[in-house]
């Protein structure tokens, strides 16, 4: 990874960081924070699904584990919120490793893997809804105490910047994967697992590393969600909404690219808001729109918005020798 690889990320993040200086309405900042949270979850999915071709339908399992872990550690054990955040990420990554180990070891691929991840997320949701430690169906509140030491900020702009910093970290991580041997092997597995094996790729190890990283990033998004809304329940943390958004955003934006999940998350939510604005009285209109978008993306732009942009624009960079 060279400075040139990181330049687009630095520029994009720097420009985005200026937004709260011009936009001060809470509605817009709320919207942007939510977009960043979804983008982060999608960035996690993108590592495993976009680069590794292992389509998970259950990233809620990791999002929720992160959210619940940080909430439980703070409210039940009095752990500091920042430490809780780190532990939440670790708990999510561990969940990823376990689910990965169980499914990849038995050779699950394609739709079977997708179904197993979906099943895990659903099991987690039902357990969280019933268990005492998670507050059951009532969910749990994180005590309001607006201090930066508690990962709580009086200003939405500050929270925006914290979320942006995490998204930026995930961007750098993704770019690092893109430029590394690990990334090349992951993509090789996506394209043809058997051929990858023949070239000396330990496919189990590579996939396990991918799902662990992927789950960790998505868990970070879950922790962020818990800190922002200071409330977690099973429907939110382990609900299918986040599994769907985590995979929809990269697919719409461009799976297997660094910026795809961000562009996807922003476009999806922008369109969702516009739809609510014009047809607000129709319940679920934004979700119906998401569905149509997915169909359109799969049919007309299998490489997402980024792929579409690349195809319609002549290549600027001549082929490197």
């Amino acid at each position, binding site marked *: 990874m060279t400075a040139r690889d990181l330049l687009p990320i630095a520029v994009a993040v720097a420009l985005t960081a200026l937004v709260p200086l011009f936009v001060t309405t809470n509605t817009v900042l709320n919207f942007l924070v939510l977009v960043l949270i979804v983008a982060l979850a999608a960035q996690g999915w993108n590592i495993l699904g976009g680069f590794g071709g292992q389509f998970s339908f259950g990233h809620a399992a990791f999002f929720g584990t992160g959210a619940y872990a940080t909430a439980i550690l703070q409210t039940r054990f009095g752990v500091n919120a920042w430490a809780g955040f780190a532990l939440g990420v670790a708990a999510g990554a561990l969940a990823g490793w376990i689910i990965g180990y169980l499914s990849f070891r038995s050779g699950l691929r394609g739709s079977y893997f997708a179904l197993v991840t979906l099943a895990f997320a659903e099991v987690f949701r039902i357990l969280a809804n019933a268990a005492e430690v998670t507050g059951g169906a009532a969910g749990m509140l994180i005590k309001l105490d607006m201090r930066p030491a508690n990962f709580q900020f009086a200003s939405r702009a500050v929270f925006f910047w914290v979320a942006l910093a995490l998204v930026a970290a995930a961007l750098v991580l993704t770019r690092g994967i893109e430029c590394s041997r690990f990334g090349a092997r992951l*993509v*090789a597995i996506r394209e043809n697992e*058997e*051929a990858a*094996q023949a070239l*000396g*790729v*330990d496919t189990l190890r590579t996939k396990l590393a991918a799902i662990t990283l992927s789950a960790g990033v998505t868990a970070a998004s879950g922790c962020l969600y818990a800190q922002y809304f200071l409330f977690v329940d099973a429907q939110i943390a382990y609900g299918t909404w986040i599994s769907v958004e985590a995979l929809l955003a990269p697919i719409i934006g461009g799976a297997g690219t660094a910026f795809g999940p961000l562009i996807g998350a922003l476009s999806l939510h922008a369109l969702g808001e516009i739809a609510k604005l014009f047809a607000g009285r129709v319940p679920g209109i934004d979700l119906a729109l998401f569905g149509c978008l997915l169909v359109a993306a799969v049919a007309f732009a299998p490489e997402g918005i980024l792929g579409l942009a690349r195809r319609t624009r002549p290549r600027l960079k001549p082929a490197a*020798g």
Partner: protein
Amino acid sequence: MLVAESISKRFGGLTALNDVSLNVKPGSITGLIGPNGAGKTTLFAIIAGFLRPTAGRVLFEDRDVTTEPPHRRAQLGIARTFQIVQPFAGLTVVENIAVGAYLRHPRRADALARATKVARRVGLGAELEKPAASLTIAGRKRLELARALATEPKLLLLDEVLAGLNPSEIRDMAPVVRSIRDEGVTILMTEHVMQAVMSLCESVYVLSEGRLIAQGAPQAVCEDRQVVEAYLGRGAAARFRPAGAALA
């Protein structure tokens, strides 16, 4: 270099390989021929680690590798190509080859440099940045070869790298195969193109219906009665011999 000891492989009631043994000497080009369905690809898959034999052992450099998975064998120095070419379709030619090169060169710059070198070697130098999916069948065969070669193997298993190529493409490819051997890579190849086998291989094993029916120098093997019958049907050897037709 490579020793297969009494390999048998059964798929349910079907015996694909029955007590097959072979020995590939270091620095040789050894051929494995036989009619369609003889078990050549199955034997290849067993040597490369993609299938476990029902009975028998595979020894590589005097080490029992029968239970080692494919990626471990690649690390030890066994590389294979696939009869049905398996390019990473979404990647460019050089990225395809780099996946192989990463095995011995963890750094990206080294792997790409190595991949570029291997690409030039097999005649893909002009197509480095093209998507692998855009290559012709001859190009894809070269890509298979290049990827395997990029892992810097000691033993290269070529599964019909010449099949599907036209005569002029075969003429281009054969010297490449020979030059790889001349650089010290031992080669075991299956092939349908007999002309290539005759000119390239020093020693040939013939499989038919899962059994080894002949082995030896290519010329001698082609005159073997059992071999001729396996290819052309029972009685063919007797019918052809009086006419004095060249059986090769």
